[in-house]
C-alpha cells in the first residue's frame, strides 16, 4: 500500500527543504513515528523518477564533512503536484476513515 504513495511521501518529505537521500529516509521514518520503515533501496529510484518527471531537481554538493552528496529539492512543479496530491489524499483518507473508522461522511 505504501508503494503506491511513495512518490507523494517523498515529495512531502522534501517540502521542508532540500535534503540528500539518507536524510529523506530518516525524515520519513521520524515523521511517520517509525511506521514507515522503507526498504531504503526503493527511495533512490523514486527520487530519480521524480526528478525525471520535473518534480524534483538535484545537484551534487560538498558539505564541510567533505563527502560529495546529491541533494534534492522540490521544483515549483513539484510543489504544485504535492498540493494536488495532498488534496486527493485528504479526501481519500476521510473516506477510508469514515468507512473503516465508522465515522460519518463527510466528517
Amino acid at each position: 500500500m505504501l508503494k503506491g504513495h511513495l512518490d507523494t511521501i517523498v515529495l512531502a518529505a522534501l517540502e521542508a527543504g532540500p535534503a540528500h537521500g539518507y536524510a529523506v529516509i530518516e525524515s520519513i521514518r521520524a515523521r511517520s513515528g517509525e511506521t514507515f520503515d522503507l526498504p531504503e533501496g526503493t527511495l533512490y529510484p523514486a527520487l530519480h523518477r521524480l526528478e525525471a518527471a520535473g518534480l524534483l531537481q538535484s545537484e551534487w554538493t560538498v558539505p564541510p564533512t567533505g563527502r560529495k552528496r546529491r541533494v534534492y529539492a522540490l521544483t515549483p512543479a513539484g510543489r504544485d503536484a504535492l498540493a494536488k496530491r495532498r488534496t486527493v489524499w485528504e479526501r481519500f483518507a476521510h473516506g477510508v476513515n469514515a468507512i473503516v473508522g465508522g465515522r460519518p461522511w463527510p466528517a
Partner: protein
Amino acid sequence: MASLIDTYLDDLSRHLSHDPALARRMRAEIADHFAEALGECPSEAEMRRIIARMGPARAIAAALAADGASRQVDRTWVILLVALIATFIAMRLRSLWLPPLATDGALAGFAAPLIDRWAFVAAIAAAVAGYWVMRPSPAAPLLALAALCASVAAGMLRIALAADWSAAPLAVAAATVGECALVGLLLAQILALCRRRRQAARLSAD
C-alpha cells in the same frame, strides 16, 4: 571489511552497466548513503544490516530500468505523434503543390497517391488502436512506422513522377525531408524502447 560495501556497489554498477552515467550516479549516491548510515569503522555485522536494509542491488537496478522503459514509452509515442503530423503536412503539401499525375497506363502514377494516403490512414489506425490497447508495447509504433515508411516512399515516388527533385517546390521537398527525418527518429526511439524493455525484463526476472 569495506569489501562488503564495495561488492554491493560493484554489483549495482554491473546491473546498471547498460547506462554508465546512471550507474556512476547511483553508485555515488548509495555509497554516500552507506557512509552516512555506517559512520567510521563499521563492523561487518553493521555493514550486513545496512545492506539488508538497502535491499538487493538488482532490485534497485530493476526499478530504475522499469522507470527508464516507461519514460521511453512516452518519448516513443510523442515522436510517433510528431511523425504523423509531419507526414500529414507533407502529404497535403504534395496534393496542393504537385501537378496531377498522369494515369494513362502508368501504374505507379495511379498507385503512388493512393498508397501515400491509405498508408497514412493505416498508420493513424495502428497508432490509435495501439495507444488504447497496448500502449507500452513497441508493436503498435512498429506497425505505424511500417505504414509511415510506405507513405513516405509513395510520396517520394509521387514527387519523382510529377517532376524531378530539383523542380519540386521547396516547401514540398522540405516537408518530405522532414518526414523522412522524423520516421528515422521514430525508428531510433522504437529500437531504444525494445532495448530498454529487454533490460527491464532481464533485471526483473528471477
